[in-house]
């Protein structure tokens, strides 16, 4: 491995190297491209302290293989301890009292009856609410308690000796409201005379997962926007077009519904606040609590041993974290506050809706002359409903204009949700491209080849083109005559390489030959623990299950917040660098006892070997016994990517085969082939698991899920898992994942993330295109329930009859 590294003296400028190599840097050749298609060696200038360049997966022993999930045993045996499972001596259970009106001023909160309930130890009334948009000028709406802007907004909480007592007591908190006019339907909220959710400009900041609305945009009534982005002249572009397609699309609000709800166990002791949190970011919780309570970060410790899913909604302490900590401070006892399912549905985030008018012009050869998107979306009393990402970043075009608008409604705040804005945007964009292909009499894959320059997606389309499922597609829509109509459709997604520089790890090597890796990063289900173990295995030759992986604790070096698909891409180079550095220290430590110089020793395949051959190889474990200290350790943090000029977006192409029962309006997804890239796949099995998950969540979004608010009372009628419909076992199609290894030469592991690009962006649009292929009718609204399907088919029938 070390031979792939080509050190070049910094004071020599060769003809090959155009620029001088800065001090401390060296030039290396790295594998770049897609094996079997475009693989080549490219030059990178990287710090000389970086470990040797990794070859492609085929030449590695542990990285790029699929050892079993490191904590799989703990999870299948029930031993894994999640936040909801933490029990501490004397721990109290807290429960919120929530608003049951969508818009009101709280006049009084009477907690006296709750306090009298035996077993109640503390009561807390919220004065500083987190998680929704804030008025830029708070003076416009002065109130002792936060204004209620959605039903389900937490108002106060109690802590008691049992969950049952806490619930009994929370129900005894009396809240006096001064009701205000409200609006929950976006179409109504856009009207000039609609009740105002905020009396003036307001905005919500994004989280580590993304989301949040544009700052410095106008606000008119409930409309926060537009946020405008332009490139070239779209009017000119449309004039030059031979074909123009324009359509209107709407999508619903989707709720994350991670199985473990939001919540914490907070233990406030003098000098140290310890919080177990179900979070995607131990760092974000620590920062949030330290900021809220004005504590030094060094006095806040956050622990996330296991967490039961987040999908973008779990960053920062949120109201549960702050309130539990306050109650713990007040009572001197640890406090557990986990939301119930209804609260989870109402108050901790969702994927905003969208209402998109998309217009695209193209020449006869398929090239796009103009792309124009006007979107509205509601993130309730939050912001972040923009969805122009796919239209802006997927294809080449001469001109572009996007206008994104957030519309405030009296509903729970939206927040980042797995590829924020992108499933919505792709639903409109990819159907429009499909329509364009039909109008241009082009194959939909050929058209995309023409307008999409991304090299990985080009390969992915080729995989699709050669697949059995695509070959069964009838280019002509609506050819089946019975009540079951079969269709095949394709769509693509786009995502971005996001890196968190707050990614560090420590690796320790012990005299007994054991190795451990430590980082505050949390494993939200993606499997980062396994990948960290694999990296140490590759370095030390120790099997992954024998590597000690200690994460999810801010006592360890800082870890990235798991949002934006950053975790693997950000943390793994730090882990590898730390492992490499620890190995060098280890070799230095054993060299004297081995009668060798450190420079002559290498640690390869679990053996310490001599480069010169002076010494017979010795196992890592036996060599460790000869260490001159009981432990060596190295800590490394993420360094910037090697060559950001070489960045491309990445994405994936999904094809769906569906059957539509046109008499009952039921869509059954039969097969999905998902072709995706994520740099170097570190553990292909886990990567495929995540893509399966994105495909299924995307399908579930497309066909079933819908947060339903009663328009007359502003209350959610399905705040449960009985009526909030999520795909179950009988809905699951046969899923085939084709993982495209796409080396990009950017870090010591060259990994990228897959949580967002995998499935959720392209699958809904692929299903919609398959529906058109099956029936000849476009579904321009989600979810595609039997009611929606029967209505769309009947409407199209009517149009045909009147025509």
């Amino acid at each position, binding site marked *: 491995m070390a031979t792939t590294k080509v050190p070049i003296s910094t004071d020599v400028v060769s003809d090959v190297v155009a620029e001088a190599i800065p001090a401390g840097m060296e030039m290396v050749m790295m594998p770049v491209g897609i094996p079997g298609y475009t693989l080549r060696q490219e030059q990178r200038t990287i710090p000389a302290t970086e470990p040797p360049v990794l070859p492609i997966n085929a030449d590695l022993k542990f990285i790029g293989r699929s050892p079993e999930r490191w904590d799989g045993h703990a999870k299948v045996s029930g031993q894994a301890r999640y936040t909801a499972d933490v029990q501490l001596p004397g721990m109290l259970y807290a429960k919120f009292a929530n608003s049951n009106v969508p818009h009101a001023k709280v006049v009084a909160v009477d907690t006296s009856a709750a306090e009298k309930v035996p077993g109640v130890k503390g009561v807390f009334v919220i004065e500083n609410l987190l998680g929704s948009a804030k008025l830029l000028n708070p003076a416009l709406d002065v109130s002792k308690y936060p204004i209620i802007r959605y039903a389900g907004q937490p108002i106060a909480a109690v802590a008691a000796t049992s969950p049952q007592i806490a619930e*009994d007591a929370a129900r005894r908190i009396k809240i006096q409201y001064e009701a205000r006019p409200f609006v929950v339907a976006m179409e109504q909220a856009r009207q000039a005379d609609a009740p105002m959710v905020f009396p003036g400009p307001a905005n919500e900041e994004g989280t580590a997962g993304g989301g949040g609305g544009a700052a410095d945009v106008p606000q008119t009534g409930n409309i926060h926007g537009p946020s405008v982005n332009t490139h070239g002249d779209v009017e000119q572009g449309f004039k030059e077009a031979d074909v123009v397609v324009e359509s209107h699309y709407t999508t619903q609000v989707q709720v994350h519904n991670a199985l473990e709800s939001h919540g914490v166990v907070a233990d406030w002791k003098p000098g140290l606040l310890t919080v177990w949190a179900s979070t995607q970011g131990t760092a974000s919780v620590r920062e949030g609590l330290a900021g809220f309570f004005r504590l030094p970060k060094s006095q806040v410790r956050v622990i996330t041993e296991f967490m039961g899913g987040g999908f973008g909604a779990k960053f920062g302490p949120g109201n549960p974290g702050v309130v539990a900590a306050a109650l713990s401070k007040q009572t001197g006892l640890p406090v557990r506050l986990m939301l119930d399912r209804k609260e989870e549905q109402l108050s901790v985030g969702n994927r905003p809706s969208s209402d998109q008018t998309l217009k695209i012009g193209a020449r006869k050869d398929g090239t796009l002359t103009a792309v124009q998107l006007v979107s509205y979306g509601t993130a309730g009393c939050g912001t972040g409903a923009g969805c122009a990402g796919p239209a802006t970043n997927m294809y080449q075009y001469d001109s572009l204009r996007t206008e994104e608008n957030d519309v405030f409604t009296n509903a729970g705040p939206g927040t980042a949700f797995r590829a924020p804005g992108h499933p919505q945007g792709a639903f409109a964009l990819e159907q429009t491209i499909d329509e364009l292909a039909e109008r241009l009499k082009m194959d939909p894959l050929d058209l995309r080849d023409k307008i999409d320059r991304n090299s990985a997606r080009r390969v992915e389309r080729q995989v699709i083109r050669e697949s059995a499922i695509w070959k069964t597609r009838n280019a002509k829509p609506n050819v089946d005559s019975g009540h079951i109509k079969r269709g095949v459709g394709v769509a693509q997604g786009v995502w971005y390489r996001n890196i968190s520089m707050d990614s560090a790890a420590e690796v320790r090597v012990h005299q007994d030959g054991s190795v451990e890796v430590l980082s505050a990063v949390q494993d939200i289900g993606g499997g980062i623990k396994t990948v960290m173990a694999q990296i140490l295995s590759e370095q030390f030759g120790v099997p992954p299950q024998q590597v000690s992986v200690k994460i999810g604790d801010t006592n360890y070096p800082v870890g990235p917040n798991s949002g934006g698909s950053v975790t693997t891409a950000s943390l793994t180079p730090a882990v590898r660098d730390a492992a490499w550095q620890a190995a060098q220290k280890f070799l230095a430590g054993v060299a004297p006892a081995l009668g060798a110089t450190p420079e002559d020793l290498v640690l390869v395949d679990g053996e310490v070997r001599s480069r010169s051959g002076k010494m017979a190889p010795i196992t890592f474990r036996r060599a460790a016994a000869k260490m001159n200290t009981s432990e060596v350790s190295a800590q490394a943090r993420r360094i910037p990517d090697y060559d950001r000029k070489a960045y491309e977006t990445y994405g994936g192409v999904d094809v769906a085969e569906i059957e539509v029962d046109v008499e009952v309006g039921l869509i059954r997804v039969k097969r999905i082939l998902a072709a995706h890239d994520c740099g170097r796949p570190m553990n292909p099995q886990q990567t495929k698991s995540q893509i399966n998950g994105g495909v299924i969540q995307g399908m579930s979004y497309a066909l079933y899920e819908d947060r339903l608010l*009663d328009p007359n009372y502003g209350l959610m*009628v399905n705040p449960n898992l009985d009526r909030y419909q999520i795909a*179950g076992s009988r*809905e699951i199609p046969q899923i085939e994942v084709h993982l495209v290894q796409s080396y990009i030469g950017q870090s010591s592991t060259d990994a990228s993330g897959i949580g967002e690009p995998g499935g959720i962006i392209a699958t809904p649009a692929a299903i919609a295109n398959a529906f058109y292929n099956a029936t000849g009718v476009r579904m321009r609204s989600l979810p595609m329930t039997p*009611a929606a399907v029967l*209505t769309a088919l009947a409407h199209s029938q009517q149009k045909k009859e009147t025509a």
Partner: protein
Amino acid sequence: MNQFSLVDCTTVDGALSQLNDSSVVKAAGVDLLDRMKNGTATPSRLVNIRNIAELRGIHPSPQGVTIGALTTLTEISEHPLIRSEYTILSDACGSVATPHIRNMATLGGNLLQQLQCWYFRSEEFQCLRKGKEICFAFEGLNQYHAIMDYGSCPSVAPSSSAVALLGLNASVELSSAGRGKRMVAIKDLYVHPDANPTKFNVVEPDELLTAVVIPRPAKGTRSAYQKYGEKQSNDWAIADAGVVLEMDGNVCRKAAIVMGAASPVVRHSAEAEAVLAGKPISEETARAAGKAAMQGGPLQTAMQGAQPLSMNAYKVQLFPVAIYRTILLAAGQMGRDPSAAG
């Protein structure tokens, strides 16, 4: 859930001695605990009949079959005799909710569960069926609500087993300490909201539903039940159909066509049944019957035919399909519908 005391009963007589105007009976508790957790039921004392062994079991006789009220839906759906002779009931019990719920839920509990309307289930909405004045569904979200004969409340009949038992002309046995036993036909078990919005069935506070008695079907009887949902795993019916055909070769002597998710009370369709009577079963007759089911029928209100609400016109398309496919399934002319749920 609020605090309550639990009266543990091991005999029917013991349980009956505990019943009064304020008593709340708990069998498995699937429906009751849901309402208590939602805050819409707050009983202070539960009479727990779950452990009364004599109320559990399937007892065939020359006259038919008697099923104890505490027999679980799984036990019923998997019972060989029920599968072969009372297929509609096996189908219906096997389609309810989830496998785990079916392992817990009892036949009596399934028959006497309260409405599944989301307004009724929600603590915040004090509706007509909770003794108040308003129904929220008419001007609210009603995509899953009734399309026929609903009058003042368009919630739909929630019990799948009731659809089957109505088709089979079954009766329930009600027992009380003071008045002994009485039999009530399934068709008379439920109270339409227009007759009394807060009384869901005719079971009196001192009565316990102890058994279901099903007459033996006539020779040549074939039956089936199918339900349709938005998804196929664990969903409530947006349309369902129970079909019992008394056949003479391929000619239908007599048919029972029953719908649950169409109206507040489980209903026969006299029109659909008339279409089939005396005719051979074919896709054509089955479709005609399905279409006819959207007409009148025996009415408890003045509403003739299907009258969809603002969001559920699709159900008027769906029911005829559910019915024709289930007729063909019962007649053996079509397999189980891959689009059906449960």
